[in-house]
Structure formats: structure tokens, C-alpha cells
């Protein structure tokens, strides 16, 4: 059994930078890179790719990422685990096989599938109530575009046991990407974990995964504060977090020597609570983590020790996130300058409303905000005392409609106002800027309904 397992954070989302992972591999002594490519709604983007081309539907950045990293990983025996498979893990593996083939690189790739539960949610009579408001799925069933269950660590553990160098999954719980190599490396009990000690190890592993799943957010990036963020050095060359985990589950969070960013009590805490609801019951498919018993101690020199997390037995059901078509939007942004910038902006908004009425453009809502004044903090952002003297006012108008043609036509309400509306305007854009809106449907599904269909396929490049 390994004494410690060192894991590097890979990407934190589809589109993130993999360059910081180079330092973790070259100077961080890591045995695994675990990479999270799927935010809650990334699958909606991948669904559009797959509709266009059935060989797509995966996070395509995994290919250039591994073309950069694999030569460094291969010579050190570093393994790679990711959920970049999205809606098409086999397609991701095939793309990697082709790319590795051009370099004659050899790798054993395991493909985990079985998280897609769209057929189950779409079946007549299925209720799958909304997790937050209890409404039955029936109301949106015809409009569902994807539905995926969050798998746990088990299939990744099995893939590693089969000697995989690279594991590609679809939707799994983000932190399970990191928990799996710990279960594999230390031989921890997983579904048979029952004692407080066994559950505590899983809870520690899950907390470690949660701290690493958002790349630079765990090492000083995105550090929300008044002023303090300026003390974090060299974010331009940030090192993503690395975890050194012992077989009892205790862990140290750190980063590659010489990299930018900061791992300290504060940066680690901001990530620990990120996108957590009840911190006494952070749910995952493998264990329920209680954060109220854990301790973080700052050892200095970008090292924070994590101990004491406790765990309870895993939930009976798995979480599903589905997405459904929910109308269309179109957005236009326009700038108005001194004098009377705000008054002219408001006059233009009234002209748009008149146009909407005159042309009977069907819509649910015309949403208006003022970028630079209140678009981030709404009514909680105080306006300056003398609004009439503002140098510039920017207006962002967004139409919500169920009718695609209405969204597509929204931009055409504006150009004439360039010569026939208020003066001293600039930067009108968004004349052809419409898009689809998606609703999100979180729900639960019986574990056995999903797990009986999970498959692991191993291919060699």
C-alpha cells in the first residue's frame, strides 16, 4: 500500500487552462492528475455539439490538453482521470486514440459510461420530482435535452484496478474523480464502509476532491475580498492545488514550488465552502461529508493541513441533473454619453418598449440592466448621488420569449434610432445576438437503476 498519494488538480471547467498542470507534474511529484471538465450546464453545450455531429458530445479540450501533458506524464508514470467524456465518453476516447496514434504514443484508456438517464426521465409515467420545488417532470418532459446521473468513485476505482493510464468518464460527482485514486491506492472500503473510521477516510477524500476540483480557485484564484486579494502573488503563473494524502485520510493541500497563487487558511476555506449547501451533509454518491468536525491548519509556505472530516453512509439515491429547453433570449447593449446620459438611456428604453408593442412582438419579459452601474449587484448597488452628470450610461436590454422568430427579430428594433433617437450614443451591439435558454431540473434516481448499467471499456492506443 502506498504511504501517501499525491494528486494534482487538472482543469476546473471546459475551457480552463492546462498550462499550470505542467508545473504540478514536473515539480509537484504527483501520481495522478484529476480533471473536472463539466459544470452543471456544460452538458447542454455538448448536447448541441452532438446534435451537429454524432462523434462529438465530449469536452474537446481533453485532446490538446493531453497532447501537451501526456509526454510529461508518461515518463513519470502519472495517471490521468477526467470527466471530459461528457455525453460521449467513447467518442472522447476515440479522438484521443487518433491523436495519440499520430505520435505512436501507447496508453491504456478506460471509458466509463452509464450516467445518461434521459430515457428514464423521458419515459411515460415517470415522476422524477424537482429536488427544490417538488414539481413532477411531466411539465418539461417533451423539452428535456439531457439528463445525467452523478456516478460515484466505484467505476473509476475499477478502471484503475484494470491498469488504466487514462480514465474518461461522463458525469460523475466532481470530487469522486479525486476520491477514486485514494480508494484505489489505499484499498479503502467504499460501498462497504460502515465504521466511523472507514467513513471518515472517505469523507477526508471527498473534502480533498472538493478542494481540488475547481483548479485555481483552490490556490488563491478568485479570492473574493476587499483588498486582500492583492496580496496573492503572481496569479498570471498560478499553481493549481496539489493534495498529499496519507492512508488515514489526513491531507496537506499545497502547490508546485515556484508557482504563483497562494495556499493558505483563507484561500483553502473559500474553496471548501464553494457550492456547498448544508455543510453538515455535503452529499455525494460515496459518502455524506460533515464539514463541521474538520480542522484546517496553516503550516505556512503554501501548505494547509486538513484533518478531522467525518462521514455518514452514502445516500440511497443518486442525484440527476437534467436540462430542458426554456424559451429564447436576445440581447442588445448600447452606450449613451454626457449630457443627460441616463435620461437619454431611459428615453431609448421607452422607444424600444413602444416598438415591441407596435409590432406586437410576443415576449414574456424585457429585462433591463445598466452595466457599470448595477448589473452585478442589482438594487443593492447604490447609484451615484448625481446620476444626471454621469459620463456614460450603458444599457443592456434582454428579451425573453417563447418564440424564436421574435428573439431573432429583436435586434432589428434598434438601428433606426441611430439617426432618429437620442444623441451622442455609441457602441450599439447585439443586432444578431439571440440564443436558446435552458431550464435546469435537479432530481433523484434509484441507485440500482443507474449502477446496473454502468460499463467500463478498456482500449489501447
Amino acid at each position, binding site marked *: 500500500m502506498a504511504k501517501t498519494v499525491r494528486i494534482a488538480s487538472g482543469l476546473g471547467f471546459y475551457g480552463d487552462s492546462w498550462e499550470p498542470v505542467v508545473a504540478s507534474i514536473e515539480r509537484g511529484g504527483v501520481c495522478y492528475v484529476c480533471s473536472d471538465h463539466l459544470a*452543471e450546464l456544460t452538458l447542454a453545450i455538448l448536447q448541441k455539439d452532438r446534435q451537429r455531429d454524432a462523434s462529438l458530445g465530449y469536452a474537446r479540450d481533453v485532446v490538446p490538453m493531453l497532447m501537451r501533458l501526456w509526454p510529461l506524464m508518461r515518463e513519470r508514470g502519472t495517471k490521468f482521470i477526467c470527466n471530459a467524456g461528457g455525453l460521449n465518453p467513447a467518442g472522447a476516447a476515440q479522438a484521443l486514440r487518433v491523436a495519440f496514434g499520430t505520435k505512436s504514443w501507447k496508453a491504456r484508456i478506460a471509458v466509463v459510461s452509464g450516467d445518461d438517464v434521459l430515457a428514464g426521465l423521458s419515459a411515460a409515467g415517470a415522476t422524477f420530482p424537482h429536488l427544490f420545488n417538488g414539481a413532477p417532470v411531466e411539465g418539461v418532459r417533451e423539452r428535456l435535452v439531457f439528463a445525467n446521473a452523478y456516478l460515484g468513485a466505484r467505476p473509476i476505482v475499477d478502471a484503475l484496478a484494470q491498469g488504466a493510464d487514462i480514465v474518461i468518464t461522463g458525469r460523475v460527482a466532481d470530487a469522486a474523480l479525486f476520491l477514486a485514486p485514494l480508494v484505489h491506492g489505499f484499498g479503502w472500503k467504499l460501498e462497504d464502509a460502515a465504521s466511523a473510521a472507514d467513513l471518515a477516510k472517505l469523507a477526508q477524500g471527498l473534502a480533498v476532491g472538493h478542494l481540488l476540483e475547481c483548479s485555481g480557485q483552490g490556490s488563491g484564484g478568485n479570492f*473574493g*475580498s476587499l483588498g486582500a486579494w492583492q496580496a496573492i502573488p503572481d496569479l498570471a503563473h498560478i499553481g493549481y492545488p496539489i493534495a498529499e494524502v496519507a492512508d488515514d485520510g489526513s491531507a496537506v493541500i499545497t502547490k508546485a514550488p515556484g508557482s504563483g497563487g497562494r495556499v493558505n487558511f483563507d484561500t483553502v476555506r473559500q*474553496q471548501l*465552502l464553494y457550492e456547498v449547501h*448544508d455543510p453538515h451533509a455535503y452529499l455525494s454518491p460515496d459518502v455524506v461529508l460533515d464539514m463541521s468536525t*474538520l480542522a484546517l491548519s496553516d503550516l505556512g509556505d503554501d501548505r494547509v493541513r486538513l484533518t478531522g472530516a467525518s462521514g455518514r453512509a452514502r445516500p440511497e439515491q443518486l442525484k440527476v441533473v437534467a436540462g430542458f429547453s426554456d424559451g429564447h433570449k436576445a440581447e442588445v447593449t448600447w452606450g449613451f454619453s454626457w449630457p443627460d446620459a441616463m435620461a437619454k438611456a431611459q428615453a431609448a428604453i421607452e422607444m424600444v418598449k413602444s416598438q415591441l408593442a407596435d409590432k406586437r412582438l410576443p415576449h414574456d419579459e424585457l*429585462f433591463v440592466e445598466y452595466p457599470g452601474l448595477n448589473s*452585478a449587484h442589482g438594487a443593492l448597488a447604490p447609484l451615484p448621488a448625481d446620476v444626471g452628470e454621469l459620463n456614460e450610461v450603458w444599457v443592456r436590454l434582454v428579451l425573453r420569449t417563447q418564440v424564436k422568430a421574435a428573439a431573432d427579430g429583436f435586434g432589428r428594433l434598434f438601428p433606426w434610432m441611430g439617426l432618429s433617437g437620442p444623441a451622442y450614443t455609441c457602441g450599439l451591439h447585439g443586432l444578431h445576438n439571440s440564443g436558446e435558454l435552458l431550464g435546469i431540473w435537479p432530481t433523484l434516481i434509484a441507485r440500482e437503476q443507474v449502477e446496473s448499467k454502468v460499463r467500463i471499456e478498456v482500449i489501447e492506443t
Partner: protein
Amino acid sequence: MKVRLADIAHARSGDKADWVDFGLFAWNAAGYAVLAREVNAATVQAHFAAWLPGRVECWPLPNILAIKLVLRDALQGGGARNLRLDNLGKAMAGALLRMPIELSEAELAASQSPRVGWWP
């Protein structure tokens, strides 16, 4: 005296479907005592009410000098149907840090330093 939460705490927000969640962190134990007194579901709900009147839940975590908050019905139904520029609420922790709180001058000084996690 009245200050803003930003003067004694730091914060990050995130989204799950239509709910925005906040981690709010004191710099030290003295600051946590002020947070624990001033920040709860009712005071945070009152702070956001003029903009987002959804229900607030609150969990104090003395072990890490932090308070966890969740604001419901905050994203027009969810990130991919929210028309705001900040459709995922990532900037909303800043709005939380605008919240006014009441404390003494001594409490303010004690809340600001030392900072547990900032070694030279």
C-alpha cells in the same frame, strides 16, 4: 459604529440551479464572534430583500471561523435561463459584503488583524 461586512470578512459565492450559496469568512476568532452575532438568516434576508427576496438559510461553522449561507430563488430560475450579466451569481458575494453591521471600534480593530492565514 456601522461598517460593511467587507471590512471584517471575505466571501465567495456559487450557484446550484436557482440557489446562490455564500461562504463568509472571518479573519480571526474575534471577527468570527462579530459575524456570529450579526449574520444570520434573518439579517441576510433583510439585506437582499430589496433585490432578491428569496428565503435564506444559515449554518455557522466555528471550526473554520465561517458562516455558510444559501439564498433561494436567486437566479431567475437558473444560470442558463437567467438574463442578468452575472447569470451564475459569481459576483453576488460582493453584494453580501456590502451588508452593514454594527460593532464597536475595539471589535473592528480586533476583527481585522491578526489574520490567521497570512504568514509573512
